[in-house]
């Protein structure tokens, strides 16, 4: 029996999980259309590689990864690309982003896949390349490209933690996945272990999922995996947070700004392990995932649904009940309300809760903070939420940062217990994004300063170079004049004829003479053959000029 550790705080909200675990995972129906956002992962938005009107097959690349930190996007089924445009996406902002709209042809025809029977023979770089091009990202919610996380120097990572805790109420997608597809999850975990050179694997599952624990344990025994352990962890929210689970399983505390890999631990979601296996063994890109549909529906259950499926079509298959006011993506603690019911589900969609007034009554009015510090008691990051609230509310951002605002994982435990119903997490999110914006502004200002200073110095340099050039020219001219004067002085003395001394000079002299003769020969044509009248006019003008010259002379003399 492994020793388990504890993290600070935590809460026990009603789990509401049994509703959706009664039936096995059901394959969702093919929707009428799919709206697939091109930016579903952490990093750069994928670059579209198809055009409207193109016919694509299931699993065909439609967005290629752009830059180092990015991931690929694939067509979830075969059909025609109807549009590539801005559409509302599953994001808290409710704003539009670049999406590919795909109209399925109903054939669901796969592109030719490249399965790999013997993945052990492939170099690790090749395996990571496959994962990147298969668009595999973390399915626990962070959607960080998995290939980036599966890189480690030998003996650096000691422990690979697999997160099957699923602590948030209502969500059961990982539970069902572990119950039904344990073998494939373990095969994926073995791949991850090889890529990371990790010694031991710890699979953490909360003890409110006995079926999943049993299934995983049975699979580990059947597969004969060495140094792989399925561990039941106590059910407490937010025990499924990566840092909290690492703490419970290994006793290691990961501070803000520190990567767990530096402490010898890497953490993945069990769903990600399953996708890694499908991508490498069968060459299948990440085009579907298990989603819990629950809340105000007649038959809460889990669906294996295609990425891009409009949420309302998916919820309809679980028989949406009247009174549904909107959809929450994720759980009730950390989930976000969707801007519309039609947005397409994304790789991060682990759960869709049909919300109703009975299920989630309108928030009670927020009252003043009474400084009861219940929030501090439950904070898993050991922060002082009441102080953070105070500073965030006053927009005293520096102070909030001093109180370790960025250690906050936004789990919502503090808001849950707040007797004054203060939406604390909203204040922290506001403060965090405000600080990020300020930092971005500072960075831009620094870049602008550098560019401006460079420009100033360049202008200065150009000016200097011009002056130097001019001075050099002046000097050269002076030297030439001095030389000419010296040369002119030589014949006067009569000791040496120029011609004998310098044939080049002589040639130049000859050329000058020639030019002079030519110039003399070429008289202006309009002065030849003048009429007496014109001659008189010229004389007149000359006389006038002479007079003016006289006058000018007189004036200057005066």
């Amino acid at each position: 029996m492994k020793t388990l550790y504890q993290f600070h705080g935590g809460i026990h909200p009603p789990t509401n999980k049994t509703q959706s675990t009664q039936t096995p995972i059901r394959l969702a129906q093919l929707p009428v259309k799919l709206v697939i956002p091109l930016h579903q992962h952490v990093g750069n938005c994928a670059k579209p590689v198809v055009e409207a009107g193109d016919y694509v097959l299931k699993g065909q690349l439609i967005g290629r990864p752009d830059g180092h930190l990015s991931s690929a996007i694939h067509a979830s089924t075969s059909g025609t690309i109807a549009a590539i445009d801005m559409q509302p996406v599953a994001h808290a902002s409710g704003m539009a982003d670049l999406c590919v709209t795909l109209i399925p042809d109903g054939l669901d025809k796969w592109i030719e896949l490249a399965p790999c029977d013997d993945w052990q023979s492939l170099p690790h770089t090749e395996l990571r390349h496959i994962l990147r091009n298969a668009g595999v990202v973390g399915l626990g919610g962070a959607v960080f490209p998995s290939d980036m996380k599966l890189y480690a120097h030998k003996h650096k990572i000691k422990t690979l933690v697999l997160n099957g805790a699923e602590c948030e109420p209502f969500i059961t997608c990982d539970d069902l996945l572990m119950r039904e597809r344990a073998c494939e999850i373990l095969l994926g975990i073995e791949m991850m272990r090889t890529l990371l050179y990790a010694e031991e694997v710890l699979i953490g599952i909360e003890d409110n999922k006995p079926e999943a624990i049993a299934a995983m344990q049975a699979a580990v025994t059947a597969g004969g995996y060495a140094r792989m352990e399925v561990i039941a962890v106590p059910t407490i929210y937010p025990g499924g947070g990566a840092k909290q689970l690492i703490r419970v399983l290994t006793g290691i505390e990961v501070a803000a700004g520190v990567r767990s890999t530096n402490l010898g631990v890497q953490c993945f979601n069990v769903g990600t392990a399953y996708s890694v296996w499908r991508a490498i063994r069968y060459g299948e890109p990440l085009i579907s995932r298990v989603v819990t549909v629950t809340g105000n529906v007649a038959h809460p259950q889990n669906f294996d649904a295609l990425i891009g499926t409009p949420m309302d079509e998916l919820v309809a298959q679980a028989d949406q009940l009247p009174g549904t006011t909107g959809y929450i993506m994720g759980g009730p603690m950390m989930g976000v309300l969707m801007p519309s019911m039609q947005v397409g589900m994304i790789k991060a969609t682990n759960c869709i809760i049909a919300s109703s007034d009975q299920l989630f009554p309108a928030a009670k009015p927020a009252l003043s903070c009474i400084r009861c510090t219940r929030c501090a008691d439950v904070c898993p990051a050991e922060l002082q939420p009441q102080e953070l609230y105070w500073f965030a509310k006053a927009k005293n951002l520096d102070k909030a940062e001093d109180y370790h605002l960025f250690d906050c994982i936004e789990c919502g435990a503090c808001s849950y217990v707040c007797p004054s119903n203060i939406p604390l997490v909203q204040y922290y999110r506001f403060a965090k994004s405000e600080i990020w914006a300020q930092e971005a502004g500072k960075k831009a200002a620094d870049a602008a300063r550098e560019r401006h200073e460079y420009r100033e110095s360049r202008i200065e340099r150009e000016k200097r170079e011009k002056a130097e050039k001019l001075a050099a020219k002046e000097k050269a001219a002076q030297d030439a004049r001095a030389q000419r004067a010296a040369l002119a002085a030589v014949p006067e003395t009569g000791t040496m004829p120029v011609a004998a001394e310098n044939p080049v000079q002589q040639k130049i002299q000859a050329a000058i003479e020639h030019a002079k003769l030519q110039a003399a020969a070429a008289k202006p044509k309009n002065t030849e053959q003048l009429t007496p009248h014109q001659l008189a006019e010229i004389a007149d003008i000359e006389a006038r000029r002479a007079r003016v010259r006289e006058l000018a002379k007189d004036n200057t003399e005066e």
Partner: protein
Amino acid sequence: MISALLVMAAIAGILGAILGFAAIKFRVEGNPLVAKIDAVLPQTQCGQCGFPGCKPYATAIAEGVADINMCPPGGEEGIQKLADLLGMEFKPFGGETKPKPKSVAVIDESTCIGCTLCIQACPVDAIVGAAKQLHTIIAAECTGCELCVPPCPVDCILMVPIAENLSNWKWKYPVYALTVSSSGNAAL
């Protein structure tokens, strides 16, 4: 008596030598306050303050020549930061100086004649082009200073406010509608 004086004089001499050495060795180039003020300014180099760039304005503030409320791109937050830094009172914008939404310059490519005047005006080298070649603005480097707008002989440069998008979207400050309860008391 004499020995005491000599000892004191020797100590004074040694300390003086140390101080003199330190003054040369650890000499601070320029006014450090200017650099501090410059770090707070938004570096648009727009000249709206009446000085030719952020650094000259910072120098003027440090010398006490200029007020702290003359930088519209810095906004009221900028004034607040300057006030905190200098230990002064916050001073609101006066008269016509008002902060505008952050914008970026855009060249209408069908009108541009390739005169290079805007390139010469840009303080941060954010315009690319050559004589009789189409010019374009590197939006990521543009500070929105508007200095390129007046020199353009064909008025082909527009200032477009930066719209909110997914990459610069921010969580909003939580606000609630005031509702009047049945007893007539306003409640949050």
